[in-house]
């Protein structure tokens, strides 16, 4: 299935990474590579738009947890936007929903960064 990406960089140091596809053991390494390269640019905030992600497994969650760790270490913001019910379910089962900053849409996630 694979994943596709769309980047959007704003002038105020915010990068939005929109992911399209399914985040599983096959595609998570590619997502991790993209995020890792973003971490190195030391943007003020990274917003991951998950509205086009229909499925996520533990490897996908683990990849996003790395973003959380980057955020804690760098004091930059790492936000998730547009979680579908299917994706939100997995975060809830993992009891990680309250750990991440989540927003209904990327527009909402852009506010206050």
């Amino acid at each position, binding site marked *: *299935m694979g994943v596709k990406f769309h980047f959007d960089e704003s002038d105020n140091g915010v990068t939005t990474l929109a992911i399209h596809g*399914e985040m*599983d*053991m*096959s595609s998570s390494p590619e997502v991790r590579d993209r995020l890792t390269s973003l971490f190195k640019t030391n943007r003020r905030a990274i917003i991951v738009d998950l509205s086009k992600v229909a*499925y996520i*497994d*533990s*490897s996908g*969650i*683990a*990849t996003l*947890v*790395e973003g*959380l*760790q980057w955020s804690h270490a760098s004091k930059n913001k790492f936000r998730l936007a547009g979680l579908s*019910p*299917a994706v939100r*379910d*997995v975060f809830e*089962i*993992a*009891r*990680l929903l309250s*750990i991440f900053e989540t927003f209904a849409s990327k527009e909402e996630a852009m506010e206050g960064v």
Partner: protein
Amino acid sequence: MRQPVKIAIPSDPKYLCLTRSVLQQLLSLHEAPEDMARKIVLCVDEACSNIIKYGYGGRCEDPIEISFEIENDTFTVKIRDYGKQCDAGKIKPRKLDEVKPGGLGTFFINEIMDTVHYCTKREKGTLLTMTKKLRQGAAASGIKN
């Protein structure tokens, strides 16, 4: 459902989507609640991922044989591999208070499925059997949903 639905995939992560797709459609045919179907698909996917990662050590050409059955509203999946045998006693889910990457797959399986059994009484590999009642209230215990 008198005959199980069987699928065999190579141990390459790119084929995991095939298993998910077949299972999703099977559960849909049996009118499993949508959220329940999603959770079951997640568990089967995680189990296969663990086989690829730990049983086969990342090798991509080894077999994973999966059979699905639904009988009296109980879903059963049997997953057979021929890789390194797992020590069921050492399979432990991640502690929930540890926010770190990894270790979540086994937690999902234990949290969601009603029964999980690893059988290594064979020359090679493991037979993992997991069951789940498809509808809330149908289960005697009704603890998991």
